[in-house]
């Protein structure tokens, strides 16, 4: 199963091709080696379309207005967080309702590291993003590893409730630790994104604030997404899947449960911490009340609506949920009976919240694989068109 045994066994059986061998032309689904089967972009169509998508995403920097770029940048950061939750819940099967807690830890680590030294709040003045971003991830990962021993003792819904308790405890700590967080209702300035001396949250010669942040978030999302895809097809990813599918069976075939559960929580929290550090650079302001159960539920919704245990699904889910907000905000001009005023009864905020809930329920009942499943269905339909099977 491991890389070493495979390459060691290869010379003994020369008939079985290993490594990267040539693809047979015109036979896109014929794999002649394990590496081909595991390749991320295994067909030309995938390579071309993924390339085009990435180019389009970068091109949006100049095509879209600053306000739309800001929304999309937020969506990309949320996608990083959603990928993190998908690693622990989707790939490793450990239900976590405590994602907001780890996001908060990342946000405050980053804010404290990059905050002004002599300001009202804790700050160390290290504004370089390549220092505070990994730091935010690592501190959150450390917290995840600390929590993991509970996860190894608990299963299923017990774990869900314990992680839910974590959110409440975290909310309390962050509300009380005022020199770090500024306290409820007051908040503090968020992390300062600065790359090699260039402030990315100010308009500069390279572009407007939104353009710079959008590019940064997009680039980071690609890095994190590719890393997660690679993790999923590695030894670790296979171990996660084994633990998820049947933990006792996994242990019997020699997967150390404790180690992989701790690892899953650690990696997931790393993603959450990085997302937390980045998320608030866009608004420039963190408030301790925002890391509530609602945020955890949002992440769960992204994972479930996007598609469990798929990276592209997490991104689609994050885009979907984050874009839902501006879409519902524009409802009053389209639908006359929905009001933009919070004091009236069918108002946009109520519609938005109801949509969250309904979408979760409807997706789980009718399309458990989420948006990713819808995509697979559409793809398969056209692949075999005009035949229905």
């Amino acid at each position, binding site marked *: 199963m491991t890389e070493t045994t495979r390459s060691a066994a290869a010379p003994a059986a020369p008939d079985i091709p290993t490594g990267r061998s040539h693809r047979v032309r015109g036979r896109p689904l014929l794999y002649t080696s394990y590496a081909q089967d595991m390749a991320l972009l295994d067909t030309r169509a995938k390579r071309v379309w993924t390339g085009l998508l990435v180019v389009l995403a970068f091109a949006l920097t100049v095509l879209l207005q600053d306000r739309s770029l800001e929304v999309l940048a937020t969506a990309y950061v949320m996608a990083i967080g959603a990928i993190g939750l998908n690693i622990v819940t989707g790939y490793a099967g450990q*239900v976590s309702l405590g994602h907001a807690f780890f996001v908060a830890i990342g946000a405050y680590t980053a804010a404290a590291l990059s905050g002004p030294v002599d300001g009202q709040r804790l700050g160390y003045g290290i504004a370089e993003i390549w220092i505070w971003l990994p730091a935010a991830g690592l501190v959150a990962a450390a917290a995840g590893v600390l929590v993991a021993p*509970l996860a190894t*003792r*608990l*299963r*299923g*819904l*017990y774990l*869900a*409730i*314990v992680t*839910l*308790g*974590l959110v*409440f*405890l975290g*909310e*309390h*700590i962050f*509300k*009380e630790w005022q020199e770090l967080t500024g306290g409820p209702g007051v908040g503090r300035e968020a992390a300062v994104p600065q790359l090699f001396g260039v402030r990315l949250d100010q308009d500069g010669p390279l572009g407007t604030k939104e353009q710079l942040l959008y590019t940064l978030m997009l680039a980071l999302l690609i890095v994190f997404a590719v890393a997660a895809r690679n993790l999923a097809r590695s030894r670790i990813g296979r171990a996660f899947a084994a633990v998820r599918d049947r933990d*006792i*069976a996994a242990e*019997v075939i020699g997967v150390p449960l404790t180690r992989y559960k701790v690892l899953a929580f650690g990696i997931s929290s790393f993603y959450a911490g990085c997302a937390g550090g980045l998320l608030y650079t866009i608004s420039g302001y963190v408030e301790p009340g925002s890391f509530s*159960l609602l945020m955890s*539920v949002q992440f*769960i*919704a992204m994972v*479930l609506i996007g598609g469990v245990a798929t990276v592209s699904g997490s991104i689609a889910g994050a885009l979907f949920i984050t874009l839902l907000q501006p879409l519902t905000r524009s409802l009053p001009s389209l639908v006359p009976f929905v009001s933009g005023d919070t*004091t009236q*009864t069918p108002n946009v905020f*109520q519609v938005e*919240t*109801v949509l*969250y*809930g*309904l*979408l*979760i*329920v409807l997706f*789980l*009942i009718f399309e*458990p694989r989420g948006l990713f499943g819808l995509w697979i269905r559409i793809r398969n339909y056209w692949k075999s068109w005009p035949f229905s099977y």
Partner: protein
Amino acid sequence: MKGLLETIIRGLGNGSVYALLALGFVIIYKATRVISFAQPALMLAGAVAVSYLAEVTGFYAAVILSALLIALVALGIERVAIRPMVGRPVFVVAIITLGIDVVVRVVVNAFIGRDVRQMGDPWGFTQVSLGPLVVQSRWLAMLLVTAVLVALLFAFFRYTKYGLAMRAAAFDQETALAQGVSVGMVFALSWGLAGFLAAIAGMFVGTGQGVEQLTWIIALKALPAIIVGGLDSLGGAVVGGLVVGVVESLFQSYQGEFAPWLGQNFAVVSPYVVMLIVLLVRPYGLFGTREVERV
């Protein structure tokens, strides 16, 4: 000493409300193996229903009517959203209830509006003296009503046909089905009972301080209660609820004096700390059944 006893009685009062909610969670869990995160919404709906009906029918009739109404709502939820999901992973069903909770709460919030709605209850903040102790009468009402309801519930499970059916289905669904127990009926009954209990709990939460949009958070305190007691133990739910209530009340009274470094309002999160400590010692709670896996 007098202060301590009064604190404990307040804790037992609040704890009995948590116990009612926890019983709802446990009944649903035993029947369907799912934790229903829709309980907070049902609780809020119950409280709001009482606050509207009390103006028309008087308080006591309103309590019974709204409890029945919420039981019906719970039945509807079970039929529409939970029944189609039989056989699917429990986590998925739990998340569905989370989605339902969000939806129902938005609808209920529209009825609450921005103000605090009063229950129209006869207790309010009035106090009675029990010998040397002076306690609020609503704590005593909560304790008494919960004691009666718990006794009725246990009698229902012990002595009636439907109670027996529910116990059988909780023990082994397939065998129960083979003996002629309608498991679907058991699912429906468990949701109905949970809705009924949640509505009564909601009414008690609203006594005195009234009900507002944020009141639903209180229902989540039943989660530490069921974990402390053990997910599948009815007695554990009652004990867990009372423990959580008393612990919270003790922190409310004494933490400012003895442990100010824990921060204001630590009492609100103290149930979760108790839950973590209990879980570290006993992963299945105080009275929960240890899960035995067949490999």
